[in-house]
């Protein structure tokens, strides 16, 4: 049943299928991301900053040069 893979010539179909697959992922996710609620997107983007304030060490002056 897989004989076509051994002997066949894939140039005509493989690239088209691969492109269609990847393009569908790109477009579906781009469509979904673009339709994402802006407030929700902004909230998610700020998650790394939500853990503040941490203990004093997070505010330590770590740029001091000796």
């Amino acid at each position, binding site marked *: *049943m*897989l*004989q*076509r*893979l*051994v*002997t*066949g*010539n*894939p*140039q005509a*179909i*493989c*690239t088209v*299928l*691969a*492109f269609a*697959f*990847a393009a569908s*992922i*790109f477009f579906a*996710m*781009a469509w*979904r*991301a*673009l*339709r*994402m609620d802006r407030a*929700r*997107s*902004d*909230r*998610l*983007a*700020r*998650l*790394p*900053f*939500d*853990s*503040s*304030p*941490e*203990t*004093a*060490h*997070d505010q*330590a*002056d*770590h*740029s*001091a*040069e*000796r």
Partner: protein
Amino acid sequence: MSDGKTTVEFNDRIVRQFLCATLIWGAVAMLVGVLIAAQLNFWQLNFGKSWLTWSHLRPLHTNAAIFAFVGNMMFAGIYYSTQRLVKARLASDFLSQFHFWGWQAIIVAAAATLPFGLTRGKEYAELIWPINLMVVVVWVVFGVNFFWTLARRREPSLYVAIWFYIATIVTVAMLYIVNHLSIPTSLTHSYPVFGGVQDALVQWWYGHNAVAFFLTTPILGIMYYFVPKAAERPVYSYRLSIVHFWSLVFVYIWAGPHHLLNTALPPWLQLLGTTFSLMLWAPSWGGMLNGLLTLRGAWDKVRTDPVLKFFAAGITFYGMATFEGPLLSIPSVNALAHYTDWIIGHVHAGTLGWNGFMAAGMTYYLLPRLWNRPLHSTALANLHFWIGTVGILLYVGAMWTSGITQGVMLNATTENGTVLAYPNFLDTVNAIRPMMLMRVIGGGLYLTGWFLLAYNAVRTVRGAQPVNGSIEVSPEAEAPDPVRPLRVAGAFFNPPVLLALVGGGFLCAWMFGGEFVKLSGLVGAMLCFALAMGHLESDGKAWAAWYDRLLVTALPFTILTLVAVVAGGLIQIIPTVVANQAINVEDRRQIPYTPLELAGRDLYVREGCYLCHSQMIRTLVPDVLRYGDYSRLGESIYDHPFQWGSKRNGPDLARVGGKYPNVWHLRHLDDPRAISAGSNMPSFRWLLDNRLDLSTLPGRIRVQRRLGVPYPEASPAEIIGEAQGQAEAIAADLSKAGAPTPADREVVALIAYLQKLGRYEPVGAPAPARSSRLAQ
């Protein structure tokens, strides 16, 4: 606790431990790298010791760089950022410590075995099977600790960095287990279950995705957390990060075959590898731009802050390496670049530029925070940056020049393309010697920079008190997100998932099936597409709600991510395993090795010969002119593991059998320069002294039989007797040629193996008379 607030203290001890391990193992990996780079210039640096020889140290370098250096860095970054993103301490201190000490034990075990030739003979998968089991156990512990922490999280939403970590954990587990499936023959030796072309495909499916899911996705997660924190502004586009994640997860996994272009790998797989590699340009550059644009408005800080400096340069190198990767996957470019130093330059742009600089930036960010003390010297950190940058540029520039020079020379022809312009391989080696020396200097500079970081770190933490971060969590913060999590059944039994799975199944039937199945597959796929579009049109909100809810539900998200990567692997591996078997090969089929040849092959693997010599003559005119008829798929079908190689520091050996007399090989292995003036190959003198151990052969042949190699039933005495008989014949020939050698030396078995390379039988022709009864 006050006003109902709870204080959560993070487990930052584990972060400090992994960070220290990163500094130490990073130095070790780079030090070994500089040594082996120098050995390629000065063969004397092999010191005539087997465990210090280039081919024994090279796996140590790659494994140390990938698993010890980047592995420890990744764990530090994941543990630090995850706790803060989910507002929860790591679930188990015990599991965290088990993870740390288990991983260090694996690294030490690797360092104690690889230099002594204990290897599986597959790149980046060299570790012997007991260590493989340790890796699986420790990785599972890591996964349990991570997902348990997610289950206890106080922040319902999963930030995009967490998505990248989830993809890393599940995909690396899958890749590692499949590519390390082996049958042991002893405590330190095993044969992989896949052979020949199947092993080649599985190996590079693993090898490529080790780069993708060990060296890239976790570091992208780290980028999405640490770059915004260091720049003190959110990621440029959270939406773009979503597209970046899903595109990488769906596309990356397919691109492995680009490591096997122009070889005997079936053409459809090569094409798949090329096409998907080219499509990786889009998500990779989207991610790079997202990282760099996060620095918008903070570019003035880049001039002074070493953390941002390293991050900006690291992300730029990510963009450069991910531009170069697809470029090298174009078959005509690959014909020039493959097997040359261009590939070495490419991977070091990624490892030193992307991984190394992200590790440095993260370390400079974490040191003051984990020890509550300012960095000892910002000036020293800036010096590290510039020394490292110059080092990388020298290294990569030298390797580009070297690779292109060697590729052009090896492919150059005269007389209207019928005669090689440089028939002596050594001409090309000597032409690139200045560039190889430049690489040593570049690598040395980079290593110097790393030592500066280590010194800066020691001075920063000396006498400082380690501190653990903590946050106060109010009950409101634990209130449910407006988007409710999915239940398990609801995650899978819904139109988007079911239609995608059924549609994918129909597409596979269309692609791989016979006439009727093919037609049914096409009709079914079209029907699924129509149904999906119809349902999306009528109930699009339900689709959107399902997706939004999926993003706050860790388990279904993880399973569906795994399905996405499994699909890409299975569609390549299943047809290859089913169709490309010895029974189906056309044209030519490999003649199984005699017992002595098999023993010699095991020595070839032990000595790491495959790291410098390929056994794959590509379907390219210069390859055929130089090495002989191109390699057929069936000619290595019984090779467990396959030995096609990925780099030619020396010539291809696929058809070296019978090309030279036995004594030529003996003298070449003893002193390569006595045969090939100017060669940089190390001496393998110990092979002439070591006694050959034949006692393990019956067990190894028994395993080969289980793997499908057509050896007849034979008693241990018959197997050993056969091997001794062939060894005595070779020893007699050596003696006749003026190089008396006892028959029980390892070199005799290796010569037997080398003389077998390139021997095959035509498929369909009557079986020729063979010298070995056991090879019938």
